[in-house]
């Protein structure tokens, strides 16, 4: 069974009097453990597509089946649980909460879990070490550079063993060396833990590292 199945997905934004179709009848099947890159021009609908798959946006029409269940029919609580337990997000901007330290930001999703436990700080530290900023664990986002903040966000996405990582230009602010480190980490997690990765990138080299490459053009999706 496919892990993610997107059927005839459409998203239309109303901007003033105009309707803009960001995603146009897209269908897509992704299996567990796939390593998928999505490329395309700005405004082509990449972010909208993975946002709908991740449950942070509702489509205008169509279905997104995750392990056979249509997440578009979920109520808010169930959709939140889905995001919390199954999905790890990495946004294209710094997405940390300013009043939490780096380590606390990594542990944040745990606060919203049914157990209401923020989890093991040891795991958070381990992940911060993996992304190379273990020494900054008690620093607040304002004390970190853009690249360091991005690494904390990556650690947060990996913290609770998600089934799927949705990453929107995850290495955008990082230097080449760190970018490669992060991509190696992604590959390793993909292989070892069979975590599915769908990442958006403008970097052809990074896109090339994926086993499956997709391109979005004006809301339409094509295999490359």
């Amino acid at each position: 069974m496919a892990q993610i199945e997107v059927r005839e997905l459409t998203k239309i934004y109303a901007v003033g009097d105009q309707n803009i179709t960001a995603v146009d009848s897209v269908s897509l099947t992704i299996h567990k453990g796939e390593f998928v890159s999505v490329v395309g021009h700005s405004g082509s609908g990449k972010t909208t597509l993975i946002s709908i798959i991740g449950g942070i946006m509702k489509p205008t029409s169509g279905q997104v089946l995750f392990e056979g269940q249509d997440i578009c029919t979920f109520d808010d609580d169930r959709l939140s649980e889905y995001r919390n337990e199954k999905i790890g997000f990495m946004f294209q901007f710094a997405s940390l909460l300013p009043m939490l330290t780096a380590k606390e930001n990594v542990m944040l999703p745990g606060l919203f879990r049914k157990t209401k436990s923020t989890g093991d700080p040891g795991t958070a530290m381990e992940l911060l070490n993996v992304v190379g900023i273990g020494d900054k664990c008690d620093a607040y986002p304002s004390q970190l550079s853009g690249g360091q903040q991005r690494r904390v966000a990556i650690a947060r996405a990996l913290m609770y063993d998600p089934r799927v990582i949705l990453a929107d230009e995850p290495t955008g602010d990082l230097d080449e060396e760190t970018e490669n480190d992060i991509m190696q980490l992604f590959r390793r997690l993909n292989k070892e833990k069979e975590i599915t990765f769908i990442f958006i990138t403008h970097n052809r080299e990074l896109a090339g590292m994926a086993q499956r490459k997709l391109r979005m053009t004006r809301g339409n999706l094509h295999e490359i």
Partner: protein
Amino acid sequence: MKTEFTFSSFALRNVKRKPLRTVILIIAIALLVSALVFSLSFVRRVSSSIRLASERLGADILVVPAGSRGFAEDVLLENKAKSFYMDKGIINKLKAIQGIDSLTYQTYLTTMQGKCCDVPETVVVAFNQDTDFIIKPWLTEKFGRKLLKGEALVGNESAFNIRVGLVEVDSVLFGNIFKMVGILDKTGTGLDNALFIDDGNLEDIMRKGKTDLKPGQVSIVFVRVKKGLDPYKIAGEIEDSFVEVDTMARKDIGKSIITTLRDINYIFIFTMSLICFLSGFLTWAIFSAIANERAREVGIMRAVGAKESHIISVFLLEVIIVGSIGSSIGILCGTSLSILLAKTFSIMKNLPLHFSIAERIIIACIGFLIGNAVCIAGALSPIQKIKKMEPLMAIKKE
């Protein structure tokens, strides 16, 4: 080191983010609650003092000279030195009224320091020990005997107020020497500030000519009606039968003050409503700004799995922290003001103090709840708005 954080610590950190804004909101809530606690304390204190004082008098009906209701209230509630007299013959006339169980009378004399007496201005109550049921319950057990001629008792607060000081001292009252032989228990009425003598002393007092009391006069007759009868009905019958007197049923004592108090109450309610509205509006404005500023953070929290209820919890806890701090400060200020300013209001200066800790706690709880309720009401609409935002839209909101 184990790092754990909860919704409460999360909210607390948010509260600390913009200290000035938080302080402004806390001050607004503190002002609201202190005004509320002060006005509630004022109204409750006056009304409960009057109610308890009338209950403790132990009579169902008071019979006073026609036109002297106000004077009687002045003496009984506020210990204002007033003299008013009627013919003692009224007592026998009243005995003819059906439904009266027992009655007793008192005569009030006003002391004037330097002219008749060596005590400051107060009321001297001459009472009949054989028929009395007003003073007897407040005679301390250790006194245990009747007052003799030339002896006086002091009210529980008069010992302090008129500086008689210790008992077993002699004072000159209307040209006669009286020995202060004991202190009455606290009655909670204006009588707490009075001096008490047996009415057998009146003849000697009048002989000295230092009072305008005439032989055969009394100030007030206290009436108890038979069980199950309506005091109002009997009071009406007394007034219909004897034009020279007015009556007051127990529940009517202090009616004029309570009516005035009701008007003050309306002003308080109006002012409080206005302050509540303004505080609520301020909370709304501040939380609308907070919600806008934190839209992206809320979006991020939603993206990592926060439910709408989690967002509400975080914001509500923040509101409750601010509301609780503001309310607590308000309770402290309001209670302090009600104590410190009590004596600047003449209505409170003269009333006996009837304000238990329990009543203060109830008022504090009301203040605390209203302070928090106003805060929550003000913040509810921005919270509702932000929790309903689609996570991606919230994240993208600048």
